[in-house]
């Protein structure tokens, strides 16, 4: 981990401005520090020589002026740093969101958004490999990304406001102090010049040793550290087997073991701070003793000696501060590095379609899959292989097969969440034009722009995602301009009107996080209402009635049959309970060809 990541400086203009401001402030702080030391040495020496208060009044007043200036500078630097941090975080966050969603973002608050990917670019990273996991919704990474974009990046505040300014001072102050001390007393300058570089060297040596040691102990530490959580989570199980009481002793034993192991690590880890502190104070003590003795023999004047004594500790102070703030601020840097790692990830190649936007006439379409398969990158076993089927307007197919056969993967391919790695998917008009030369008007699915293709599809996933917004807005997902009456009609068709009307605020009721207010069956019917409102020629349904209780399942079934009427449908279901409601059944087997059998 570097103290200053070049990507952070390159990526956000706010950081560059902040860095320049920090260097300017740091220079001013260093100057004030030197002036204050000189003023103090001058005044004390003057008073010792017997000069009166009136004689020294200007120097004393200057000390007050320096104090005020340092106060103002510290305030301005901190406020400016926090403002820059807010901006830099916003810029990083926007880049992250733009990257993972594949959407373009309007310019950031600072007007300096990096080039956002244009619409129709590659598909977002979260989709690749995610849709094959059975349920199509959500990805395990989504949670991590949310944390990263909020709390993770907030750790950058410390980095910008506390660490970077100290880093600048840690470079400027020792050099300036050394120059002034060298001008005043060469021998003291030599002591400082010899000890200063030892600090980073020793810290690096100790740090390397600690790291190796910590890494060796890391597994043991994390196992011991996680034990308490494991036991508290398993409390009901322990209680059932009458082991709850016995565990208290074990918790104490393991926590003590954890303490011993951690302390062994800390004894080494604290060495780095020890070396720093020891070298810094010892050097100051050496300087003090040495100038004291030379002063006694008249080889030095009092004012110079005082100046050197006041300045010597200042040379080491910023180094200690940087050391103390290193770990806290590195959390922010780690978060930023994670963001960069995400930004550098290859985007999946599922989008396409803009190059040779094939003309697909409006109206009903057919879809043909021939030997279609998908193997996710880095996996040996295909998620789907050798699927053959044709979707026709007005006809519904049932897709069955054991879990892991690739049923949901097939839906993901039709939704263009991924591109097949084998075989081909083609689409064509339901009524091929006569002048087509017998080709049937088939075009590869890849050639159709993804968003225009998806506009022809209504998808009801197994676990539809509902937003923390009103019922009405949730139903309007695919048709934001739909009127109130249209929404209600869709809800009625989806058998959802009844329970929506019974909600406290009817159609305006907020559904809570992920639709927590509703049961699984009710969520399913909201998703069906979305599909009705979308009024698309192709309907894809993923396990519409799995895990539902009888009442909800019956309502969903009624709505599904209504939705499929006259459209081109594909139902993915585990059991064959839907067989009597469809026009054909396709069975997929893991890594084997699927074939259509008449129902």
């Amino acid at each position, binding site marked *: 981990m570097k103290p200053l990541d070049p990507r952070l400086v390159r990526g956000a203009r706010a950081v560059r401005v902040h860095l320049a401001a920090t260097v300017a402030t740091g220079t001013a702080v260093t100057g004030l520090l030197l002036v*204050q030391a000189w003023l103090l040495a001058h005044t004390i020496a003057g*008073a010792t020589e017997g000069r009166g208060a009136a004689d020294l009044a200007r120097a004393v007043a200057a*000390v*007050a002026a*320096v104090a005020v200036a*340092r*106060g*103002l*500078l510290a*305030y301005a630097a*901190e*406020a400016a740093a*926090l*403002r820059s941090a807010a901006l830099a975080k916003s810029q990083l966050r926007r880049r992250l969101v733009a990257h993972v*969603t*594949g*959407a*373009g*973002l309007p310019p950031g*608050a600072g007007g300096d958004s990096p080039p956002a990917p244009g619409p129709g670019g590659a598909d977002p990273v*979260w*989709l690749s490999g*995610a849709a094959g996991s*059975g349920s199509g*919704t959500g990805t395990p990474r989504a949670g991590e*990304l949310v944390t990263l*974009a909020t709390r993770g990046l*907030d750790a950058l505040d410390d980095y910008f406001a506390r660490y970077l300014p100290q880093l600048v001072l840690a470079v400027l102050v020792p050099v300036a102090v050394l120059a002034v001390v060298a001008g005043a007393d060469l021998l003291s300058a030599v002591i400082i010049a010899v000890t200063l570089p030892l600090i980073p060297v020793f810290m690096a040596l100790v740090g390397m040793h600690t790291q190796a040691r910590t890494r060796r102990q890391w597994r043991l530490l994390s196992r011991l550290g996680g034990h308490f959580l494991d036991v*508290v989570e398993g409390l*009901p*199980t*322990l209680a059932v087997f009458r082991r709850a009481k016995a565990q208290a002793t074990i918790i*104490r034993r393991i926590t*003590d073991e954890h303490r011993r192991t*951690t302390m062994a690590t*800390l004894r080494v880890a*604290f060495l780095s701070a*020890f070396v720093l502190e*020891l*070298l810094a*104070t*010892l050097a100051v003590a050496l300087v*003090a*003793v040495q*100038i004291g003795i030379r*002063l*006694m023999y008249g080889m030095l004047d009092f004012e110079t000696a*005082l100046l050197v*004594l006041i300045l010597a500790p200042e040379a080491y102070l910023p180094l200690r501060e940087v050391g103390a703030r290193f770990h806290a601020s590195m959390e922010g840097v780690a978060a930023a590095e994670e963001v960069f790692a995400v930004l550098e990830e290859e985007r999946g190649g599922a989008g396409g379609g803009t190059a040779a936007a094939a003309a697909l006439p409006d109206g009903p379409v057919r879809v043909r899959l021939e030997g279609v398969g998908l193997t996710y990158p880095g996996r040996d076993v295909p998620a789907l292989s050798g699927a053959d089927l044709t979707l026709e307007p007005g006809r519904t197919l049932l897709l069955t097969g054991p*879990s892991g056969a690739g049923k949901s993967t097939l839906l993901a391919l039709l939704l263009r969440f991924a591109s097949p790695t084998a075989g081909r998917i083609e689409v064509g008009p339901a009524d091929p034009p006569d002048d087509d030369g017998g080709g049937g008007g088939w075009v590869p699915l890849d050639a159709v722009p993804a968003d225009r293709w*998806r506009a022809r599809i209504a998808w009801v996933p197994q676990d*539809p*995602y509902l937003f923390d917004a009103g019922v009405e807005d949730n139903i309007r*997902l*695919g048709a934001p301009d739909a009127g109130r009456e249209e929404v209600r009609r869709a809800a009625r068709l989806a058998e959802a009107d009844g329970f929506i009307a019974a909600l406290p605020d009817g159609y305006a009721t907020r559904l809570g996080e*992920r639709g927590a207010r509703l049961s699984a069956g009710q969520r399913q019917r909201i998703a069906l209402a*979305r599909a009705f409102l979308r009024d698309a020629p192709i309907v894809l349904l993923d396990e519409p009635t799995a895990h539902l209780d*009888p009442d909800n*399942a019956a309502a969903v079934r009624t709505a599904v049959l209504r939705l499929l009427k006259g459209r081109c449908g594909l139902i993915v*279901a585990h059991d064959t309970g839907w067989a009597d409601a469809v026009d054909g059944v396709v069975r997929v087997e893991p890594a084997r060809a699927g074939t259509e059998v008449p129902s």
Partner: protein
Amino acid sequence: MTAPAADPPAPGRDPLLRMAALARPRGGRFALGVLLGALATGSGVALLSVAAWLIATAATHPPLTAISLAVVATRALGVSRGVTRYLERLVTHDAAFRTLADVRVRVYERLARTEPVRRFRSGDLVTRLVSDTDATQDLLVRGLTPPLIALVTGGAVVVFGTVLLEPGGLLLAAGLLLAGVAVPLAAAAMGRGPGRRQAAARGELSTALVDTLYGAPDLVAYGAMDRAVDRVAAADAELTRVARRDAALLGFGAGATALITGLTVWATLLLGVSAVEDGTLGPIPMAVLVLTALAAFEIVAPLPAVAARLGAVRASGRRLFDVLDTPPAVAPPPDGAPAAAPEGADLRVRGLRVRYGPAEPWALDGVDVDVPAGRTVAVLGPSGAGKSTLAAVLFRFRDPDAGTVELGGADITGRPVDDARRVVAGVPQDPHVFASTLRENLRLARPEATDDDLWAVLRRVRLAGDAAAMPQGLDTEVGSHGTRLSGGMRQRLALARALLAAPRLLVLDEPTAHLDPDTRDAVVADLLDAAEGYSTLLITHDLAGLDRVDDIYVVAEGRVVQHGTHTALLSRDGWYRDAHRQP
């Protein structure tokens, strides 16, 4: 040895004080840590004071003997500061870890007495509770010892300053109090407004992000992604605006500290110069006083960070003591517990009523259930019907509000919990698999079990083949939450554990909850095979395996709505037959 349950719950007291009180048994170690810390900080200040005296004295060209003591002292202080600081950190961390062990045991013992299921059903709550417990360690190391160290050294410096020149000591006291107490507290108070405003804006952003990322497939499929991203951008702009505006408030602490430090040095200098002119102070003590003032502010440097984090630690403490102050959900049995353990294995539940609070609806409202000895009976119903509450009563996680639960003719609800659990075992909902080996997970139920016993029970639940195929057999680590096992394997392991406990009644609470349909039927079939011969109560929301049970109760809204055998219920109109008609 356990932590003494010393102080009675005092909900009115500041949680910070109560958390600090948890460290009382380790008071000696903390006192040593504070002493070492004070020596370390004191060495730093004293180094400059002594050096100032050394130089000011040397300037008068005395004989070498006049300054030789100061020379030795300066060198000694140059070493002692680093050494004592190192020791202080070791001692306080060690003491804090020891306190953590006390607190963990105490929290755990309290949780074990409180009803362990309903309150902590959410995994997030458990995780937060554990990190709240660990926050005591943070409070002790970073929140308690630095102020105490500052108090000791600050006091010493003020006394020293007063000895040199009385007004000088007062000046130092005023400066240190302002920079060490007033400014940090004021800065923390000023930070609360921005903290609240930013938390609200951050919450909006977080919700927008969650919706956008978790709902991404739905958004993309319905062409709504751009709108969602616009919402994120708006929330982000609002948060950035708030944070930039509040930056002006948050800079106060840093500015005020620098100002007070500089002005105190200035005032000391002014005072010292006048005092030398008046002849009330010699030039050497004057140099010492000014340089001591210059070094003294190192004492209060850690305090702003302490004040800033106290709010978060206090919140942790409040949540922690909320848990510790919760009364247990199972009343301790009356003295002179009932005599003989029941002999029979037939369960008879009559008129069982349970609710989770005086204002809450009845979770169970007069339920009667019978499990004849050696038979398998299912309780079926949609989620929220009260099935899990029944399991909680049977496992003695909860006392019923009314009704009786008799096993072999004796009521188990009045008996000590572990007595009841000796005869009732089973698989609670979401059985926990511990991050340990297969063997340890099994022996939990019977620590004295031999490997032969374990293999026998694994064969019985049809897990022996999988277990034998694992890299280290019974010694295989199953991972945190048993992640290296499949869902079906975890259920089989949990049942094997229950069988090892050799109870008289087996309760299986939702054994199929997280299994996919393919494995569900096989798992239920094997579980019921393995439970053959036990009185078994199967609590479930789905229909897998119900054709094999002897009797079925359908429960809805806390009441039994249907009761009969599989075939009898199928021949009747009602919930059960409707459920079977669905695709």
